[in-house]
C-alpha cells in the first residue's frame, strides 16, 4: 500500500482554525435595545474586530413590540445556537424577552427552557427574514 508522510500538523491547525473562523463574527459585548436606539449608527464590535451594524427599521420594529423595561433587557444581537447534529436551534435567553420577540415574529407562542428558546429549522427563515441584523449564529459542537 502506498504510504506518505502526510501534512498532519497542517490539517490539525487548519481544522482548529476553521471553528475559530466560524465564530469570529460574535460580538465582543452585546448592547441593549435602548442603547442601540440612541446611537446614530447602531452597531457592535465583533471578536475579529469587524463591525456588525443593525438596521434601524429592525430596531424600530423591536421597540414597537416591547415596553421600556423590556427594551432595557433585550440584548442585541440575539444569539442563535446551532448545535452540530441536532435539528433544532436554540436562541439564548436569560430573561425571556427574546421569547416575546420570537412569539411575535413567528406568530405563535414559544416557551423558554433552561438552555434558551428552542426553534426549528423551518422557523429559522421567518426569524431571519424579520430580524436579519438583530440575530447572529453561533456554531457549537
Amino acid at each position, binding site marked *: *500500500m*502506498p*504510504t*506518505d*508522510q*502526510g501534512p*498532519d500538523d497542517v*490539517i*490539525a491547525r487548519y*481544522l482548529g482554525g*476553521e*471553528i475559530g*473562523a*466560524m*465564530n*469570529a*463574527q460574535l460580538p465582543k459585548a452585546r448592547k441593549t435595545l435602548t442603547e442601540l436606539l440612541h446611537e446614530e*449608527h447602531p*452597531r457592535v464590535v*465583533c471578536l475579529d474586530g*469587524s*463591525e*456588525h*451594524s*443593525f*438596521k*434601524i427599521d429592525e430596531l424600530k420594529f423591536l421597540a414597537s413590540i416591547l415596553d421600556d423595561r423590556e427594551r432595557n433587557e433585550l440584548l442585541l444581537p440575539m444569539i442563535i445556537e*446551532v448545535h*452540530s*447534529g441536532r435539528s433544532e436551534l436554540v436562541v439564548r435567553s436569560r430573561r425571556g424577552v427574546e421569547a416575546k420577540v420570537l412569539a411575535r415574529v413567528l406568530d405563535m407562542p414559544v416557551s423558554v427552557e433552561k438552555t434558551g428558546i428552542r426553534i426549528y*429549522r423551518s422557523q*429559522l*427563515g421567518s426569524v*431571519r*427574514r424579520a430580524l*436579519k*441584523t438583530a440575530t*447572529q*449564529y453561533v*456554531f*457549537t*459542537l
Partner: protein
Amino acid sequence: MAVKIHVTRPTKIELARLKKRLRLAKRIQKIIKDRLSILVMEFLQTVRESAEVRERLQKEYEEAYKALSLSVGYHGYAQVEQSLMVSSMPFSLHASTRNVAGVTLPTFQMEQDRDSSSWFSPAEDSSLIEYASSAAQRCLSGTVELAELQSALELLGDEINKVKRVNNALEYSVIPGLDATIKYLSMKFEERDREEVARLKYVKLLIEKREAYAY
C-alpha cells in the same frame, strides 16, 4: 479515488493520535455541514428577496419614467431641467457591514436629511414634478436595497463554494485517509500480534522437543 495512507511512525501512540484526529475531523465536518446548510438557507432567502425587490423596482422605475415623461410633456424640458438643476439630494448613504455565519456582508442605509422632507418645494414646482421626484426617490432606495442584496448574494455564493470545498476535502480525502491509515495500522498491529503468537508457539514447541530429548 485512491486514498493515501499517511504514516509517520507505525506505533500505537500514533494510532491513538490518529483516532483522536479522526474524531475531531468528523465533529468539524458536522459543524461545517451545519454552516453550509445555514449559508445555503441564507443564500436562497437572499435570492427570493432579491427577486421581490427587483420586481418591485421594475414597477417603480416604470412609474417614475411615466411620471417624468408626463411632467416633461406638461412643463417642457426646460422647466423640468431647471427644477432638476436647483434640486439637491436631501439624503446620505451610510455603508457598514453585518455578519452572517462568518461572512461579512455590506449593508447600506439611506438616511434622509431632517431639514428637507422632499427634493422639490411644492410652492415652486408642480405636483407632477413632485410626484416624479418622489417616484425617483423610491427607485433610488430600491436600487440601494437591491445593491445590498446582490453583493450579499455574491459573497454568500463565494463562501458556499469555499465551505463546500472544505467539506468535500474532509469527506473525500481527510476522513477516508485517516480511516485507511487507522485500518492499515490496526491490521499491521494485529499481524504483529499473530506473528508474536506464532513465534511463541514455535518457541514453546522447541522447548518441549528439547525437554523430550533430555529425557
